[in-house]
């Protein structure tokens, strides 16, 4: 199992929007690189990312191997309040997956 994601979800009371920042731990191997012996290092990358809040999907993404190693992602959504949970899940092309959550904080 991969290392946990770092997730921050902050509600801006002025706009009513939640800004989410996610840092994932993943090699995101492209399948283009070769090792010291000249053998191709097989592709290994996150293919799908889903973010939900209160059971509602707030972002759904498909990624290719061109997303950078240890992917960073930021997005904003409305309709949630401080204390609600944001759940982020990913699945990679090996079928490995990981799901983490964060409680929405109000910006002070």
């Amino acid at each position, binding site marked *: 199992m991969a290392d946990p994601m770092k997730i921050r979800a902050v509600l801006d009371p002025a706009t009513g929007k939640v800004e989410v920042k996610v840092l994932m731990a993943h090699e995101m191997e492209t399948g283009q*690189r070769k090792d010291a012996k000249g053998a191709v290092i097989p592709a290994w990358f996150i293919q799908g990312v889903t973010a939900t809040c209160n059971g509602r999907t707030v972002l759904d993404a498909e*990624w290719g191997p061109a997303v950078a190693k240890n992917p960073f992602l930021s997005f904003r959504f409305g309709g949630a309040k401080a204390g609600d949970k944001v759940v982020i899940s990913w699945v990679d092309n090996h079928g490995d*997956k990981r799901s983490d959550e964060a409680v929405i904080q109000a910006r002070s």
Partner: protein
Amino acid sequence: MDSSRREMLRGAGGIAVMALAMAAGLLKPAAARAMTWNKAAFDTKSFADAVKALGGPPAVESKDVVLDGPDIAENGAVVQFTIRSQLLDTESIAVLVEKNPNTLAANFQIPPGTDAFVTTRVKLAESSKVYALVKAGGKYFYAAKDVKVTIGGCGG
């Protein structure tokens, strides 16, 4: 001689099919994602082909799509872009890198209630034009930007 060779081939095929079925059974959720993952779009090698594979007619350049990123990236392995769309009914936002081995890097579905805004980091194999492609109201719009890369993000 010939027929026994055929038998052997058939046998080998059967084993491969069984192995596939087992893998599918063991990795069911991944298999489901692998089936929905738009391989055709991620395999494309040009902006026009990627737009077509994502289901679009040719995209139109639009000032309502804003692509923020560096003019010069020292390290092509990590280049951050922010994409904003001011178009009503923005349904999806994609990032495409023209000179990468495959053009499409990422495609984000934006459900109602989520801002048409996303920040992500991608790899650039070499200096390239980078596109932000937005689907809004069933139509496709884009913004583009040239990014110069000092050290490539792919290859070895």
